[in-house]
């Protein structure tokens, strides 16, 4: 009896591992096919623009509001910490660097995953379960090229822009709190920021990160939708998985990318 159960456990473990590896392989093939099918979407750019509206533009409000509050918190916390060392003048630098290098790309990507990523997964999953994708394929129109690739490029293009907006609004929030509310000198706040923030190592690194996050989050969201079992439960699970997997991927990748970037200096 004991042995039986043990064997069953091992078998279940093996099954899980094989399943995971298979899904990973399937995802890789999906991604390749997606890239190969991108020609149409880029030729008919209006398709991508439409998706940018849904994925990017519709995320603007949540991105800006979150950015503002994150920036204001940074202003408060930053001032509180810096004044212990008598270096309140560095507040602008602290706010700007935290946002541009870390919080902008990461938090914007997390928000993007839960706002736009879930919407993509649910939409693709529903299109699949109501046979819309098969019907399109049957009309000799490749769903990968017509539906999925435009969403992918829209996500990839929107993500760095959203992160930039997040950081900009965040810096403004830090300014509101630090300068307007607490009374740090405005000249110091901006000039220190201008002197210390480098375009190549700070701003561009943030852009690279958010570009990578854009690719990863959008690809995960689209794959989960495409791979969802064609039932209500399947679609809802896929939507949850989009948030969980892309959040984990963002945080892990952020560490890896940061290590590379700092190591490269």
């Amino acid at each position, binding site marked *: 009896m004991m042995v039986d159960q043990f064997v069953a456990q091992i078998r279940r473990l093996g099954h899980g591992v094989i399943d995971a590896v298979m899904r990973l392989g399937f995802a890789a093939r999906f991604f390749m096919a997606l890239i190969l099918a991108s020609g149409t979407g880029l030729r008919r750019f209006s398709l991508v623009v439409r998706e940018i509206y849904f994925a990017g533009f519709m995320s603007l409000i949540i991105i800006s509001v979150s950015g503002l509050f994150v920036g204001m918190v940074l202003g408060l916390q930053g001032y509180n910490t810096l004044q212990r060392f008598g270096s309140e003048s560095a507040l602008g630098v602290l706010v700007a660097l935290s946002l541009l290098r870390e919080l902008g790309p990461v938090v914007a990507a997390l928000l993007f995953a839960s706002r736009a990523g879930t919407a993509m997964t649910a*939409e693709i999953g*529903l*299109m699949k379960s*109501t*046979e*819309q994708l*098969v*019907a*399109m*394929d*049957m*009309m*000799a*129109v*490749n769903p990968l090229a*017509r539906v999925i690739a435009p969403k992918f490029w829209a996500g990839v293009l929107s993500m760095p822009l959203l992160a930039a907006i997040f950081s900009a609004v965040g810096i403004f929030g830090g300014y509101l709190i630090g300068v307007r509310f607490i009374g740090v000198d405005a000249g110091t706040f901006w000039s220190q920021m201008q002197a210390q923030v480098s375009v190549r190592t700070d701003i561009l690194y943030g852009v690279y990160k958010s570009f990578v996050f854009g690719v990863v989050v959008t690809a995960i969201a689209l794959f989960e939708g495409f791979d969802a079992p064609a039932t209500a439960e399947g679609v809802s699970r896929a939507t949850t998985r989009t948030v969980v997997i892309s959040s984990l991927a963002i945080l892990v990748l952020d560490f890896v990318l940061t290590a590379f970037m700092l190591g490269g200096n």
Partner: protein
Amino acid sequence: MANDPSIKVECNILVFFHLIYPVTLLYMSSETLVEITNLDFSYPNRAILKGINLSIPKGQVVAIMGGSGCGKTTLLRLIGGMIRAQSGKVCVGGEDIQGMTRDQLYGMRRRMGMLFQFGALFTDLSVFENVAFPLREHTDLPESMIADLVLLKLHVVGLRGAAYMMPSELSGGMSRRVALARAIALDPMLMMYDEPFTGLDPISLGVIGKLIRDLNDALGTTSILVTHDIHESLNMVDYVYFISEGQVVAQGTPDEVRHSASAFVEQFVNGYPDGPVPFHYPAPSLQEDLRMGTRK
């Protein structure tokens, strides 16, 4: 715009093809359009089709009937090249569907229309845009001509007035008629209907039945009709195949079917619960299953 010579040429070509269609049909009426030979298909754990043979002549409406789950939808998917069989051949217009590359298959599908069991309209597009979809994707027609064609197709299915509604605002029967208009947008040579009659009231049912017949004859299409509805379909089709347990068990013209001596056909036509068609999905005997339940 109306004086653009290229549009005139396209118009003339369209008219020309519509005029020449019936003539070509006359010459080809004896040919078969779809030929299926010794087709085997199974899902990983279950054989669905076991050596099916059937042929569908050009210009006819052919019904494929059989119990629920016998593999009718699967058969349509095989003809459309959406899935591949383990062995056997599916030829459409003399070309083997299974051996085609994706591009060849897409070329073939442009000339096929399929009405899905649940319509499968694109829910983010209006009725008009749904019908315009194949035209926009596959032709370079100017907007004004697309609009005319779409309204004509919608007129045929009686829903010109619903052109600017969204699919979510339609009833099931209306959705299916819109899907029908979309499927015939490019005047296909082969139409496949998957259960066009389910869930319709008797009037809509008659309307759709007549539509299928009229479209077939007016456009010179060939139609495959998958259905359970024997009484409606016997009135409108040219030929019937019965499928059971993965094989063709009976076939014939509607008259032959009505007078058939086959036990299967008799059960199907009269709807007897007992006969060659089992009611139960294959399973261990009930006693065995239940006793296992009590043991736990």
